[in-house]
């Protein structure tokens, strides 16, 4: 018997609105389509009416989870156009914020994934552990969501020696807790049964469809902008790019957990070697030089790119934002095919979709 099963735009397994149509034969999904656009706010258009500082405030609100990534990437693009050299201390502070953001984003996703597979004790535990990272972000930036740490030419808030020691101590407490989650995730039978072999996307398909970030790395593709095209202060740090060969939902969970370990390494190196000096280039609103450039950053969900075109005035001629979810969401129908309807929510969630990013 054939059915068309609609999921969303509002659904308990979805944190944000997306509509999916599943074409099924009994329990098995034969084909699927996804429809987006429920959060489209015309942010790219609004950017053309704003100066660089106002744009940073605006793009930070593209997404609540990776808000720093947006401000960071836009600032990098304007700095590249204007040939500004950001003070090293400012770059380190940006990297520390970006990696803390990655930690909280990955743990948030893991909690949701555990919740979807019905493992609510792990959901609560993961989010409990995540709270310590949120506290560190709040201590560092003053905010839990939109951090406002980036400005054109550097960072907006400095890290005192006391705060530096405080974050390092938090990381010392966080590390064994994270290791426990990694151990449970790798060895728990319930997690394995619900995620292994589900939503498979082969390495070839990941390349063909243009998947990015942890989603691509879970399909055994070693891609990471931080390593492949170093920017900001990332060239100063040693870290690995974890990949996992099983190409399923399980691999996506493991890759994100292993990335948390790597993020901790980066934060520790940055805090241990925090350079002295200014954190930014001052508070002047810059004119955006005539020309065009693209800046890229490895956001928690994958490669985020900003095209910024300037016309020599304070306003942007064009800002084009291309987010990882824009690349990963088209892979969802491919992953859904051949799976059961019961796994559809988990497979959609496995790309860690952010539809407010995607729709802009």
């Amino acid at each position, binding site marked *: 018997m054939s059915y068309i099963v609609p999921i969303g735009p509002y659904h308990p397994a979805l944190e944000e609105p997306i509509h999916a149509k599943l074409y099924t034969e009994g329990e098995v999904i034969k084909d699927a389509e996804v429809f987006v656009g429920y959060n489209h706010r015309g942010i790219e258009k609004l950017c053309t009416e704003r100066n660089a500082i106002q744009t940073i405030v605006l793009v930070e609100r593209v997404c609540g989870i990776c808000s720093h990534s947006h401000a960071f990437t836009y600032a990098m693009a304007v700095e590249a156009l204007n040939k500004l050299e950001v003070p090293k201390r400012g770059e380190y502070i940006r990297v520390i914020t970006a990696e803390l953001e990655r930690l909280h984003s990955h743990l948030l996703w893991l909690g949701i994934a555990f919740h979807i597979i019905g493992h609510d004790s792990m959901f609560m535990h993961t989010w409990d552990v995540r709270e310590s990272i949120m506290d560190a972000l709040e201590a560092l930036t003053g905010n839990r969501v939109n951090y406002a740490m980036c400005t054109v030419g550097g960072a907006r808030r400095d890290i005192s020696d006391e705060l530096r020691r405080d974050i390092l101590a938090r990381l010392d407490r966080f590390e064994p807790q994270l290791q426990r989650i990694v151990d449970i995730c790798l060895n728990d039978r319930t997690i394995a049964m619900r995620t292994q072999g589900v939503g498979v996307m082969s390495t070839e398909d990941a390349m063909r469809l243009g998947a990015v970030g942890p989603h691509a790395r879970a399909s055994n593709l070693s891609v990471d902008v931080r390593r492949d095209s170093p920017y900001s202060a990332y060239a100063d740090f040693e870290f690995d790019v974890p990949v996992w060969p099983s190409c399923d939902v399980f691999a996506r969970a493991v890759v994100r957990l292993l990335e948390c370990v790597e993020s901790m390494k980066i934060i520790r190196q940055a805090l241990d070697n925090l350079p002295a000096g200014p954190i930014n280039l001052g508070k002047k609103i810059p004119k955006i030089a005539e020309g065009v450039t693209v800046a890229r950053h490895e956001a928690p969900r994958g490669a985020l790119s900003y095209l910024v075109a300037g016309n020599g005035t304070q306003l942007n001629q*064009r800002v084009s934002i291309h987010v990882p979810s824009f690349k990963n969401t088209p892979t969802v129908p491919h992953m859904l095919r051949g799976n059961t309807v019961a796994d559809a929510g988990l497979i959609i969630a496995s790309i860690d979709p952010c539809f407010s990013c995607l729709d802009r």
Partner: protein
Amino acid sequence: MQEYKQIEITREEIVPTALRMRHDGKWLVMIYGWYQTDGRLRISWDYEVGPVVESYYVLGEKSVPSIAGIYDEAARWAELELYELMGIEFEGLDTSKRLFLPENLLETQGKGQILVTPLKELVDRRDEILGEKKEASEE
């Protein structure tokens, strides 16, 4: 600082460039469209080539061939977005379904009302629609 290399190409070179990049296993970073200060439309296909982003662009073309057959969904969504929001035609692209805009705006798709129309006109148009809706609900 990341390197951004810009290379102007002709309309005829779009597909061979995409084929060459796909064959070499290069990532399609994104397809961008924007109006330069001289008013000419610029469409660029950006590929990741090692640590560099190579941007192949054409100037003044409102209709270009689609590379969705080469880069699959990675190109199709980007082309659909530019079709909907800027009115750029991609020859061979299936535009029967909308990507971002509501279904009831299908008749205005391809006219680039969002990114091309001045914000003031968009705001006036919104006020007009809201006014019409208010009048209808009062009736």
